[in-house]
């Protein structure tokens, strides 16, 4: 066991234990560590946005004599529109916040929707289509058939426009089975994820701090 002499490691270890103390019960140490985390995270992000985005992309360029006047006007106009987000804090003119929100939503939707249809719907539908190539070997063929049945059965479960009778009844029942298998897989992975995060902290406490792990 070789205890760390680095004060930062000690601070991180004490804060980790403070957060873990919540497992016992809510307490002031936990609350202190939680608030500190939120504060530092926000401060870090704001600093970065200021130094990496606003200063080089706006203030430096507007202040530079080499920037053309038309670019400067564009930059100032965009900065003013962006600043309208802060009107939320002034109730009388808070409606102005809709302008930047509308621009961002319009831009993001226009750029995202056609690409998402292509990347997430059409390509995924293509992947369920069985072709001769799907049967290159028996395993891939079997999985292709299972995926096709799974997709149809699961979609049929969410088909609420008509009463579940005839073919729809067993199909939607099969859909429930596929959904349950999906939930089971998600739960198993979630357990692994949560345990992993805890392991990460223990690796730090037992390794970097206490020196039990080399």
């Amino acid at each position, binding site marked *: 066991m070789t205890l760390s002499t680095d004060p930062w490691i000690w601070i991180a270890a004490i804060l980790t234990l403070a957060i873990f103390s919540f497992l016992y019960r809510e307490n002031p140490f936990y609350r202190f560590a939680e608030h500190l985390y939120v504060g530092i995270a926000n401060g870090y*992000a704001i600093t*970065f946005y200021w130094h990496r985005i606003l200063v080089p992309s706006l203030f430096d360029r507007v202040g530079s004599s080499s920037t053309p006047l038309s670019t400067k006007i564009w930059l100032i106009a965009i900065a003013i529109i962006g600043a309208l987000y802060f009107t939320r804090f002034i109730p009388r003119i808070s409606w102005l916040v809709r302008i930047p929100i509308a621009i961002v939503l319009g831009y993001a939707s226009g*750029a995202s929707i056609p690409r998402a249809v*292509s990347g997430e719907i059409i390509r995924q539908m293509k*992947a369920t289509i069985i072709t001769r190539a799907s049967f290159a070997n028996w395993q891939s063929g079997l999985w292709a058939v299972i995926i096709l049945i799974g997709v149809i059965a699961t979609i049929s479960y969410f088909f609420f426009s008509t009463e579940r009778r005839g073919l729809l009844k067993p199909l939607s029942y099969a859909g429930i089975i596929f959904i349950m298998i999906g939930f089971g897989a998600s739960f198993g992975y979630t357990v692994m994820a949560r*345990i992993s995060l805890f392991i990460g902290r223990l690796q730090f406490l037992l390794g970097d701090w206490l020196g039990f792990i080399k």
Partner: protein
Amino acid sequence: MSSTHENIFLRLQRIDRRWIYLVLWLVIMVPLIFPFRIQPRASTPVAQLFNYIDTMPENKALVISVDFTPDTRAELQPMVIALLRHAFTIKRRVGILAMQVYGLGLAEEAIQQVTNEFNSRAQTHEDSVIYGEDFVFWGWTTPLLTVMLGMGERITRVFPVDYYGNPTESLPIMRDLKNYDDVGILVSIAASAMPRSWINFAQVQFGVNLSCGITAVSAADFYPYVNSGQFIGMLAGMKGAAEYEQLVEKRMKNKGMDWGLRNTGTEAMSSQTAAHLAIMVFIVVGNIAYFASRRRKK
């Protein structure tokens, strides 16, 4: 059923959850101090990604997008480290960026660790890993749409300066790393839906090859994209990282680089196994107690 059994089942259902935390703490901690050997075997998606990078043409670069924050460091940081080790071992150029401000520090930490591992053992200039020649850290900029679409045209326009403030045009690596055409594969290491954005903006528009390393929580959401061929393989959670670490270690040994480097993902697998067994026991015991007490009530 005797009243003793009834008491046990009732007590099991009312057990203070802090006892479960304590048991889990011990079950996870003990194998970390006294590990038992677990050698993860590479699953198909992990092997797919490894083989793709391993056989990537020399003139193509690996781009790693660090799209996660410190809260998921335990799962995802080993992936970044393993990918960097792999690329440097087979002498492929690497470009690194972060789509999250908080990912910058994590990316820098991984770069420093891996470059130190290689440069401290380098005998010649050829063996060294040199910034600006073998790899570049572009840093972070926003918004993501501009980054993902802009990199398809000219990377230096999206990142005029790198993370350290050097003009990217002045870096030798950027002469042959102009846009996605020079990228062999882009791997998004993420704890969010960011890999999907890479598909929609970088792949749909420019056809860049993609893969992802994701937290175990989101693994089930991303398997369909591996199945459809939109991702070339995938690393899912700490297990995926451990599997990749094993493949990279084997590759390094084959190249005479048996350095005995620490693999934090592999190191955690004995604790993972013990914790999963414990949780399975909890689930079984909890269900037995529930059904037994319900039968008793009837």
